[in-house]
């Protein structure tokens, strides 16, 4: 089961401020805040330990309501067959930026460093978003180099594809090898983790130009719509 650790995530403060600076205008006027921002950017770069565990699973049958893998496992409802219909394989992965980030967020909060805790939390979220996008791009390059196509990716729980399939994913992948486990309530620990799946096949799949956000139940209510990935 391949494990990929060699990710160089970028934490470009200038780019971040370009994208999100408008949400921090007032707080940055507080004395000492620019220094807190600088320190937190250094902190995320130090603490993030990006890792991905993944595998490509051959598809046995694509039913309307679910995909049956060659090993007999059923995975994917909701938009999965619409997005990945025609795939010969499903690439399934779990991405994490590790426990140190979450631990530090908690420590800052406990110490009353609320601004630092909030900012590191946000940077941790962006980091795992960036990692999942990088992983997807890597899958795409790999598929293309073999003359294959890749669908857009989906994550269980974000669309009508039930979060209950997290249990299936964790049966298929031994994510403990990258330090990620699934709680009884299907929450991944450490929290800054994401699971995703994409179809690989000889023909294009799904609706061109759509992303996981287009299938998400939050829709326009989500302030992060289309922005999960990357700093």
């Amino acid at each position: 089961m391949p494990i990929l650790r060699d990710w160089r995530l970028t934490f470009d403060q200038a780019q971040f401020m370009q994208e999100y600076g408008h949400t921090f205008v007032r707080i940055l006027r507080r004395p000492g805040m620019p220094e807190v921002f600088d320190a937190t950017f250094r902190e995320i770069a130090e603490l993030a330990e990006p890792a991905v565990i993944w595998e490509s699973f051959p598809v046995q049958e694509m039913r309307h309501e679910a995909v049956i893998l060659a090993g007999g496992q059923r995975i994917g409802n909701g938009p999965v067959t619409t997005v990945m219909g025609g795939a010969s394989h499903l690439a399934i992965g779990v991405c994490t930026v590790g426990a140190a980030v979450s631990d530090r967020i908690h420590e800052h909060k406990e110490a009353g460093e609320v601004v630092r805790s909030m900012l590191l939390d946000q940077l941790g979220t962006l980091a795992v978003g960036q990692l999942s996008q990088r992983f997807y791009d890597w899958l795409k390059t790999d598929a293309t180099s073999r003359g294959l196509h890749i669908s857009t990716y989906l994550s269980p729980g974000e669309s009508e594809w039930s979060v209950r399939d997290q249990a299936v994913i964790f049966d298929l992948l031994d994510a403990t090898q990258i330090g990620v486990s699934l709680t009884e309530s299907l929450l991944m620990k450490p929290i800054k983790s994401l699971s995703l799946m994409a179809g690989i096949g000889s023909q294009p799949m799904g609706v061109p130009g759509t992303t996981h956000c287009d299938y998400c139940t939050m829709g326009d209510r989500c302030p992060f719509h289309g922005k999960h990935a990357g700093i």
Partner: protein
Amino acid sequence: MANELAMAMADLDEEKVQALVKAGLAGGVDPSALLNECREGMTLIGQRFETGEYYLSDLIMAGEIFKTAAADLAAQGGSSGPTKGKVVMGTVKGDIHDIGKDIVVTMLRGANYEVTDLGVDVPPAKFIEAVKETGAPVLGMSGLLTISFDPMKETVAALQAAGLRGRVKVMIGGGPVSEQVREYVGADALGVDAQAAVALAGQWLAA
């Protein structure tokens, strides 16, 4: 001076808040009146967040400014008198998302509610225990996962079983919570943001 402090608070003008508090105290203004001004400012901040003018970082900053001002005023004997009432809050069992819940707690406290924050991953029994202990007539549950809806429902059922449902109003919130979820859970109301939580508490505790 009166409205100026609330406005400075609402504008997150920390220096001005501090200066006005200092000048007010030096001028013999009742510290309790100054504290209430700050609370008014917090309410305005909640409204600005609701309309999208303010962001998460602004709420956090507001909490910090308020905390400092309130501590200074309390040291001078300032008090807002009795609180507007008690609220028990927590993120339900199985869920550890706390950012949204923390904002709700900050805004409720800013609006002068006495909040018992039970933290995250709170089982129904713990909610019931806290409601009994504090006598709070309002219970708020936060949850960001669809899987959180069952523990919310179980908590409402446990309130019922403990004979408390009649005197405790229940509000729920968190990203994916909707009117259908509210119905499923059996809560009295759903709140889309922290301001809604303050408004609901106000409505119920004034009644």
